[in-house]
């Protein structure tokens, strides 16, 4: 059996929404190099909608796939929905992750939450 599901490998090999948004209005970074995973999420929120999202990740295959999947799940979604995104939903959308890799999906959830907090701080908007 392969280490990862085909979906994980697809998102790992062809990550969606990779890169930086220069005029992002919400940026979140979680993880640390010591543990071997860092995720950075850039959000561009307009009219309560995530108009654009990009990520940068230093990490293993499942960390890259989780970031990619999470960006796909929130792009174009209203902030009210994005707030509800859970790591479990990300892992499920990837057809599951090995137990010891679940923390990668947690990082994806946390990176998005952290970016939303940053947006709130910058704009003073209560989301």
């Amino acid at each position, binding site marked *: 059996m392969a280490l990862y599901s085909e979906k994980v*490998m697809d998102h*790992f*090999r062809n*990550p969606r929404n*990779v*890169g*930086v948004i220069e005029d992002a209005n919400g940026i979140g*970074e979680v993880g640390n*190099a*010591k*543990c*071997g*995973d*860092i*995720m*950075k999420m850039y959000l561009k929120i307009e009219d309560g909608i995530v108009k654009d999202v990009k*990520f*940068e*990740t*230093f*990490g*293993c*295959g499942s*960390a*890259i796939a989780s970031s990619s999947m999470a960006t796909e799940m929130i792009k174009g979604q209203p902030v009210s929905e994005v707030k509800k995104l859970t790591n479990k939903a990300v892992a499920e959308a990837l057809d599951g992750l090995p137990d*010891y*890799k679940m923390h990668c999906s947690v990082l994806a959830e946390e990176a998005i939450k952290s970016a939303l907090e940053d947006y709130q701080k910058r704009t003073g908007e209560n989301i």
Partner: protein
Amino acid sequence: MIYADNAATTKMSEAAKNTMFTLLEDAWGNPSSLYAHGQKAKEVLEKARLDVAALIGAQPNEIYFTSGGSEADNQAILSMAEAGKKLGKTHIVSTAFEHHAVLHTLKKLQKQGFEVTLLNVHEDGIVRPEELENALREDTCLVTVMYANNEIGTIQPIKEIGELCRRHKIPFHTDAVQAIGHIPIDVVRDNIDLLSASAHKFHGPKGVGFLYAKKGVKLSNLIEGGAQERGKRAGTENVAGIAAMAEALKEASTHMAENAAYVSRLRDRLIEGLSRIPHSALNGDRIRRLPGNVSFCFEGIEGESLLLLLDDKGIQASSGSACTSGSLDPSHVLLAIGRVHDVAHGSLRLTISEETSEGDVEQIISSVKEVVEYLRSFSPIWRELTAGKKQFIL
């Protein structure tokens, strides 16, 4: 497919395979049986013992066949601990970057009251004999130092360490799993009392290995039962596997000089090519390393992603990153030579063999370069490093 993970396991040689197949047909008897069919298996077994012994400068009655390197390590260490304890000696000297078969056995002994000194292996991955001598005590019952490291390939000054131990009358064990069949080993020249070996690291079968224990060194049993292996290792012998191991070792020893020369040349080309990748570093001493071992750290990327993408390009390698070990910490070997976590996560081990071609090496160099560049292109650490917000380590 380019197989560059020979330190994990090797492909069985044709000769070893043929030996095994033939004997599974012709010598399937129990070597302990007295009828002709059993005695034939016994003959095969003893011939293998003779061959293995001769290839490392030992006597046949100093060779004990085991299930592999880990069993041999366990038996060697636990035997010396038991013998030491009877004399009130409960101190063991080893190194910080031994294989887990050694380190975990030592940990078990620590729980039983043994004291263990793990020597520093320095940035070059080499133990200093003078530091080892300073660590010896009146109550030291064993020194165990690997012949060559499994991750970074550095070769230890085994002969000098052996001499020291002989002088201080302390038993000396070496885990030679990665070295045997690849570099010349002679237990007499090297003053070795106990040595562990595993067949599948030199093109023999898995599940077979041996422990060399110098005459007079008293072994304890890990496995109790019948009187096989002169009463020191019970269980009906894996006759075909043992004979295939002897065949593989014979072959490896016969061609050792030419293989080592060829593989070292490819290794040096690999090191040269990979060193051109910016902010990368070779792990372990450049010269005193196994012919086939190339171990690198690349800053700003993580090892598992690197392995997966190399696999997509048909290259099979390994890494000491945390993600590949299933724990949060990167390899204890890389930490032992002073690589910090950030960098140790981005490690790559390529272990080539005489079956690797020059074209393979060029392919590996260009693929690694491409994958490292790609992973760096969306690594937030790399961005900070290149933006000057963080200091490069490598």
